[in-house]
C-alpha cells in the first residue's frame, strides 16, 4: 500500500503503522489504512483487555436469627440473643430483657397471688405423627420455630419447622372477653385462620374449633380447664376442643360451614391426608351439610339434640340407633355425663368420637 498523496507515494510499512503517520510526508493515516496495514502484517485488531464480570451464583447467606433490642435497635444475635431471651439485659445499651420482666412479674404474681389468670394458652397440634398433642404457648410474646421445638421434636417435623420464621406469630387474649387473637409478625411463609392469610399488625380472632395454620402446620385452640367437649376425627386424628359455657354449643360434623367455607375439622383432615388419595376419597363421602349436634347444660345433666340433614348418608350413633332411620328428624336426649362420657358417630370410614371432659386434668 502506498501513501495516497500523489506528491508523496511512499510505500507504507510497519514503521508507518507504528507512528500512525506516513513516514514520507508525515500525513496521519486514517482508520481504514491502519486496519489494512494491520491485516497486511498479520497484526490482530487492537481489542481492549476483556473485563470478566464475576458470576455470582452462590446462594445468599441468610441472616442469622436476631431480635432488635427495643432500646437501641441493635440486632441481637447468637450468644447475645440467647442471653437476651433468658433475661440478660442488652449488652449494648443495658435495656432490660422483656423475659426478665416476665420472669419478674410471674414471680411477683406467684409470690403475692395478686394477678391470677393464665399467662399461657393451650394449643392442639393437628398435623403429623404427633397429631392431637396438647401444649401451651406464652401470651403476648413473639413466637417462632424455637418456641414450637418441643412439640415438633420428632424428626418427621424437621422440614416443616424450617417453614416457620424465627418470629412468626404472637398470641393475645382479651382480659375483658377472653377472646383469643393472633398477629402475624411478618413471617415468610404466612399465618392463616380458617384458610385466610392474616397480615399486618392487627391481631385476628381465633375461636375454639377454628384452624390456625403456620404455613401447612395446623393448630387449634385447646380448651381451658372448664367443662368441654373434645371431638376427634378418628381416621385423621384431628382434634378440636369446645368449652361448654351457658350458651348452647353447636357442632357440625359435615364438610361445609353455613357460608360455604370448609369446616375447620375437614380442612385440617384434608391437609393431613395430602397426597393420600384413598383417605381423601373416604373424606369426601361426608356430605356438605351432614350431622348437627347441639349440646346444652341443664344443671347436672346435658341435653344433646342430634339431626341429620342427609337422609341417605346417616351416621350410626352408638346407643342412638333410631337416628339412622329417622334421618332428618331432630332427636333430643338428656344424657348422663357419667354414662355417656364418649359418643361414637360413624359413617363409613369416618368415625368421630365426641368426648365430654368435665375438668381438664
Amino acid at each position, binding site marked *: 500500500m502506498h501513501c*495516497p*498523496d*500523489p506528491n508523496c507515494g511512499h510505500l507504507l510499512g*510497519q*514503521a508507518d*503503522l*507504528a*507512528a*500512525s*503517520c*506516513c*513516514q*514520507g*510526508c*508525515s*500525513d*496521519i493515516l*486514517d*482508520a*481504514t489504512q491502519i486496519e489494512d496495514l*494491520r491485516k497486511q502484517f498479520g*497484526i490482530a485488531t*487492537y481489542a481492549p483487555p476483556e473485563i470478566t464480570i464475576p458470576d455470582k451464583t452462590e446462594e445468599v447467606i441468610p441472616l442469622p436469627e436476631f431480635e432488635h433490642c427495643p432500646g437501641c435497635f441493635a440486632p441481637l444475635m447468637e450468644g447475645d440473643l440467647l442471653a437476651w431471651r433468658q433475661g440478660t439485659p442488652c449488652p449494648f445499651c443495658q435495656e432490660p430483657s422483656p423475659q426478665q420482666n416476665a420472669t419478674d412479674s410471674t414471680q411477683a404474681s406467684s409470690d403475692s397471688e395478686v394477678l391470677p389468670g393464665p399467662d399461657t394458652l393451650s394449643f392442639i397440634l393437628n398435623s403429623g405423627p404427633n397429631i392431637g398433642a396438647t401444649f401451651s404457648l406464652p401470651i403476648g410474646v413473639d413466637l417462632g420455630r424455637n418456641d414450637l421445638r418441643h412439640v415438633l421434636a420428632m424428626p418427621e417435623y424437621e422440614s416443616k419447622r424450617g417453614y416457620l420464621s424465627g418470629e412468626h406469630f404472637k398470641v393475645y387474649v382479651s382480659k375483658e372477653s377472653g377472646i383469643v387473637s393472633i398477629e402475624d409478625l411478618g413471617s415468610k411463609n404466612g399465618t392463616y385462620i380458617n384458610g385466610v392469610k392474616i397480615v399486618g399488625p392487627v391481631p385476628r380472632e381465633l375461636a375454639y374449633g377454628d384452624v390456625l395454620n403456620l404455613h401447612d402446620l395446623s393448630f387449634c385452640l385447646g380448651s381451658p380447664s372448664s367443662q368441654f367437649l373434645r371431638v376427634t376425627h378418628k381416621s385423621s386424628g384431628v382434634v378440636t376442643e369446645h368449652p361448654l359455657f351457658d350458651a348452647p354449643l353447636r357442632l357440625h360434623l359435615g364438610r361445609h360451614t353455613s357460608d360455604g367455607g370448609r369446616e375447620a375439622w375437614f380442612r385440617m383432615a384434608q391437609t393431613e391426608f395430602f397426597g393420600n388419595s384413598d383417605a381423601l376419597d373416604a373424606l369426601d363421602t361426608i356430605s356438605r351439610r351432614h350431622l348437627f349436634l347441639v349440646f346444652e347444660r341443664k344443671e347436672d345433666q346435658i341435653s344433646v339434640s342430634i339431626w341429620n340433614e342427609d337422609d341417605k348418608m346417616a351416621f350410626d350413633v352408638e346407643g342412638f340407633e333410631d337416628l339412622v332411620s329417622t334421618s332428618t328428624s331432630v332427636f333430643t336426649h338428656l344424657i348422663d355425663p357419667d354414662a355417656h362420657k364418649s359418643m361414637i358417630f360413624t359413617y363409613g370410614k369416618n368415625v368421630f368420637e365426641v368426648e365430654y371432659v368435665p375438668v381438664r386434668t
Partner: protein
Amino acid sequence: MPQPVLTASLTKDVALCNSPLKTKGALTIVAENNQETLPLDLLLVLDVSGSMAGDGISVVTDSMKHILNDLMRPEDRIAVITFNSSAAVHTQWTDVTGTVAPLTAGGGTNFGSAINQVLSFLGGNDNNGSRAGVAFFLSDGQGQAAKDDNVRSIPDFGFTMHTIGVTSGANPIHLEQMAELARGHYYHAPGFEDVKQAFQSVFNYGKTIVYAAPDLDITVPDGVALSDLIQTPQGLSLSKHLGPGTHSISLSHMIKDTRMEISFSVSVDNVLCEGQTMIATFELDQTSIHLSVRGTDDQTELYNAPMNTDVTMIAHSAVAATALKKGDEAAVTRALTKMEKLGATNPNANTRTTIISQATQATTQGERMEILGKMQSDTSGKTKLRDD
C-alpha cells in the same frame, strides 16, 4: 497580565526508538476565561482609484460614517489611509467625537505604496499589546503588488490586516494571500452594496480581541525540524520550515472564547530509547510548554498506543484548508474523507467537515476564502462560522 493556556501534543506519545520519525503535532492556545476585550484601533486602507468613482466612493464613505457614528465605543479609534497610484494619510487617529472628510476618486492602483504608507504610519504607533490593531484593506482591482516581507511585518506593530475584495474586478487569491501574511482574513463583497456589511463584520471581529497579535517563540533542538505550521481552522500558513534554533512567529489576534490551533509536521532524526526525546518548546507571553516523545522498541505497545484524535483533526483540517486555498480539489476530498472517518471517534471533526464541505461548494473563490476566514474553534475544539 492573564496567562494563556498552551497545550502541545503529537499523534502518538510513543515512537519506535533508534529510528527516525515523521509525525504531526498540534499546539492549542486558549485565553484565560473572563479575559477583557481590548480597545480597538481600526485603520482603513482604501482604494480610491478611478474605478471606485461614483457608487464605490459613496458606499465606502457611508460605511465609514456608520462605523464612526453607530458602532465605535468611546475607547475605540479610527484612522484612514487612501491610495491610488500613491498613498497618503487621509485621517489621523480619531475617536467617536471626530469626523472623516469626504473621499475623492481617481488614478491607478498601487498596493505597494499603500503598504509602505501603512508601515510608516504604524511606525510611530506602539500600543504594547494594550490595544487591538486591525487594518482593513479595501480594493476593487488588481494593482501593483506589495512586497511580501513588508506585508508580513504589519503584525510586528500589533496589527493584523484584513482584506476585502469588492466586485469581480478584485483578485481574491492575491488579496487572501496579503491577509494571510498579515494574519488577517479575507472578506468578499460581490457588489458595492455588500461593503457596508463587510465593514461591520470587521468591526465586530475587532471588538472581540483579547490578545493583540501575540508573538509565539518556538525553540527547536538539534536533530529536529518542524514544517508546515498552519493555523486552523482558517488554514493560515504561519511558517514553512523551522530548523534547530529559536524562532519568533507572529500569530493573528486571539478572539474571546476561542481556541487557537496550530498544526505542524515533525521530523526527528533519531528517537532515543532512554527517556523522552525533545521535539520543541513553545513560549507565549511568559508561558511555556515542552513537547517530547517517548521512545520504545516494543512493537505491540507502538501498534496499540492510542492516537490523539484532536491532533488528527487539526492536522486534517490544516491539509483541507490549505488545499482549498490552492484549489487542489483532490487533496481537499482526501482530507475530508479522513475527517469523516475520524468523526466516529471525535464528534468535533464532524462539524468541521460540514463547514469545509460547505466552503468547497461555494460558487466563487471569494466566497470560499471568506468562509475559511470566518471559521473559528471554540475553547473545546468545536468549529463554527463567525456570524458578524
